Structure formats: structure tokens, C-alpha cells
């Protein structure tokens, strides 16, 4: 279908940039060529994937199914120019193959191989007319690059999303908030607290207050070596936020040094429940909840 007049040939030699009108004629031609030779090209591609030892986690049947879908979607996107459809497909694909342990470089690799296979096929078809071939490749390559880009980015984003989900699940299982009695939670703080960890602990505590309908929370800081102003501020905020959810907070393990830090940042210790040791704090908590505190033979309360 090359009917280039001499003047058109001259045009493309002088102006190697993409001409939008050309582009719009070329892509449909390109697309029908790729559809016509679908079976052969798809097989070529599958062969090259094997040769590059990609997608080894898949069975031959899975490979056949996925390469067929990817091929068809690829050509569809070339035809419609719809990136949304491509992103949707890329996310779907990612969701399917991530659990099978497919890596990012494999996904990018197979899309680049497909781009190659199709580019070569275009080369074979149009090699009789280099000027026309150039125009076809000029139309094809950026589109193909964009597809590869979109698929790769979608895959990476999907992987990140899955990893974060897994991390959240792990964190939920390993929350340090302990429901010890009905309506009573203990949060032992052990180790150095940085802002990030303090924020996470507060989040987990507030969620636990809702989940367990806690009325009293004992935050034990005996195991936290350094309570500087930043950490003290976090503590105060944790107390205030817990209060907004209807829970009272007792802070235990407050050494004289820590008490001093709290005073320095402007905390009125008379307004904050602080108690020397955890045991004392637990007893105070139980009294607040209306439990009678007994210890061996003695009666408490």
C-alpha cells in the first residue's frame, strides 16, 4: 500500500518528525497487519520468551493463555489509543501473576520482546520502501514504548500494593496492644521510640480501643530507655486521643527523670495519670473499672 509521490518522499526525508496525519493513517494499517499475522507472531514471541528463560514459573498452558491475552490487548491498545483500558488490563494481569512469583524484569522483558517481534514483522513487511518503513516505525515505536512503560509501572504499583497489604496483615497480627481484661488494654513500650514507631503504636492503640471497647489503657514505659521531649509529646497525644475515644490512660513506669521531661514540655502531672510501676498501674486500672482488687489473703479495693 505504498503510494508515495516523489514529493511525499522528499517530505519525509526533510522532516523526520512525526506528522500527525500520517500517524493516523498508519496505525490502523499496522493494527490490521498485526491481527492478520496474529498466530504466527504470537508463537514467535512465545518462542523468544522461552529462549530468554522468562516466565518459567508458568506452565505451557498458562503461558499460551497469557501470551494470547497480552498480544490481543497490546494490539487493541495500539488501535484504540486507550491508556485506561491498558492500565486496567495491566493491573488485572499483575494481580494474576504476582502470586505466581513473576518478577518485574520478566514482565518488562516479555513486553519488550513483543515490541521487538512486532517491530521486526513490520520491518519485513515494509522493507521494500525505507521511507515508508521509517514512517511506520516512527508511528509504532513511541506507542509501543508507552505500552511497555504503562505495563511495567502498573505491575510495580500492584506489587507495592500487595506488599503493603501483607505488611499491614503482619502488623495486625503482631500488635503490641494486649487485651488483658474486659475493657482493659495494656500497651508495653519496649525499646527506643522514634516518631514513626510512636505514630504506629498510637494508631494501633486507638484501633484496639475501638475493637475491644476499652475503657482503661495502661501504657507502660518501663522498657523505653530514652523518653525525650519528642516521645513525651507523643505520649501526651496518645493520652488525649484515647480520651477522645472514651478511654482513660494510665502511664506506668514513669521515673523521676521522665516526670521531669513531661513537666518540661508543659504537662500538668496532676492532670495525667502517672504511676511508678506496672503493678500499681494495673491495680489502679482495675479499681477504675470497678473490680475489687485482691492480693493473696488480703482484701483490697
Amino acid at each position, binding site marked *: 500500500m505504498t503510494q508515495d509521490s516523489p514529493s511525499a518522499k522528499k517530505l519525509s526525508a526533510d522532516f523526520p518528525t512525526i506528522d500527525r496525519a500520517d500517524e493516523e493513517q498508519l496505525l490502523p494499517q499496522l493494527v490490521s497487519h498485526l491481527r492478520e499475522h496474529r498466530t504466527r507472531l504470537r508463537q514467535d514471541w512465545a518462542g523468544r520468551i522461552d529462549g530468554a528463560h522468562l516466565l518459567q514459573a508458568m506452565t505451557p498452558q498458562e503461558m499460551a493463555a497469557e501470551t494470547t491475552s497480552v498480544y490481543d490487548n497490546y494490539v487493541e491498545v495500539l488501535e484504540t489509543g486507550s491508556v485506561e483500558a491498558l492500565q486496567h488490563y495491566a493491573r488485572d494481569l499483575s494481580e494474576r501473576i504476582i502470586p505466581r512469583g513473576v518478577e518485574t524484569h520478566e514482565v518488562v522483558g516479555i513486553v519488550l520482546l513483543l515490541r521487538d517481534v512486532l517491530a521486526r514483522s513490520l520491518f519485513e513487511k515494509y522493507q521494500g520502501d525505507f521511507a515508508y518503513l521509517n514512517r511506520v516505525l516512527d508511528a509504532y515505536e513511541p506507542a509501543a514504548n508507552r505500552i511497555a512503560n504503562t505495563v511495567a509501572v502498573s505491575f510495580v504499583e500492584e506489587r507495592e500494593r500487595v506488599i503493603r497489604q501483607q505488611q499491614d496483615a503482619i502488623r495486625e497480627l503482631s500488635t503490641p496492644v494486649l487485651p488483658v481484661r474486659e475493657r482493659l488494654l495494656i500497651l508495653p513500650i519496649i525499646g527506643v521510640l522514634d516518631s514513626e514507631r510512636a505514630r504506629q503504636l498510637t494508631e494501633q492503640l486507638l484501633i484496639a480501643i475501638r475493637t475491644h471497647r476499652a475503657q482503661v489503657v495502661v501504657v507502660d514505659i518501663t522498657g523505653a530507655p530514652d523518653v525525650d521531649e519528642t516521645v513525651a509529646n507523643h505520649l501526651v497525644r496518645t493520652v488525649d486521643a484515647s480520651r477522645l475515644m472514651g*478511654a482513660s490512660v494510665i502511664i506506668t513506669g514513669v521515673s523521676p527523670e521522665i516526670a521531669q521531661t513531661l513537666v518540661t514540655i508543659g504537662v500538668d502531672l496532676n*492532670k495525667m495519670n502517672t504511676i511508678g510501676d506496672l503493678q500499681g498501674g494495673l491495680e489502679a486500672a482495675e479499681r477504675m473499672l470497678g473490680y475489687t482488687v485482691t492480693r493473696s489473703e488480703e482484701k483490697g479495693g
Partner: protein
Amino acid sequence: MDAGPALFSILRQGDYLIASIHTALDDSQMLRLQQDLIDQVGRHRARGVIIDVAPLDVIDSFATATLRNLAEMTRLRGARTVIVGIQPDVAYAMVELGMNTATIETALDLEEGLRHLNRPRSPDPSRPHSVGLFG
């Protein structure tokens, strides 16, 4: 008159008023809630008010100030107000924002709110939850 579903509802339960917010409210709607509640406290001589703010996904400085003023105004009319249903992420944001919430009485949910109202009032309004230990 709004044709759409109600933004909030106020029900009487004995001496108490129970206000349920149904959706995110804008500033003027919050003020309307405040006005309606104060009117009804006066009209029905309510002794307690529970405001369920669970559907509010953001409680910012204006909302907090409105709720705090509401509590103060109902107190002047002889009623205690308890805010219930503040979500964990919202509580966190309110505190990060730096709002003074010490005078607002709170409870986890409606049930706890009623329990809270039925308890004898703690003497120190800035320590609404101090029972037994320091107050």
C-alpha cells in the same frame, strides 16, 4: 426545606436527647445542629445529650469548636453533653491539630455514652474520666 435525606436526627429518650449525625456536615449544617440541639434542650428540659459523630470522617477546628461550644451552652442550660463515636484516625487528627478538647466529655459509643451520663459527674470538668484515682 431539604428534599434529600436528613443530615442528622435528634431523638428523645427520657431526659436525654440523642443526636445522630448521618453524613459529613459542612459548617453551616454543623451550626444548624448546634442550634437545634440547644433549642430542644431548652424545650424538653433535657438533662443529657449524646451526639454520635461516627460518620464524620473529618473533625477539624471548626467542628471541634462547635461541639465544644455546644457542650458549654447545654451545660448552661443544665444538661451534660457527651460526644461518642469519634473514629481512631479522626481522634488522632484532632489531637495532631492541637485543639483543646479537655472540656469535651467523650465516650466510645452510644451505649457507653448512656452509661457515662448515668454515672455521677466527676468534680473536675477537665478530667471527665478521672474516677477513683486522682479526683
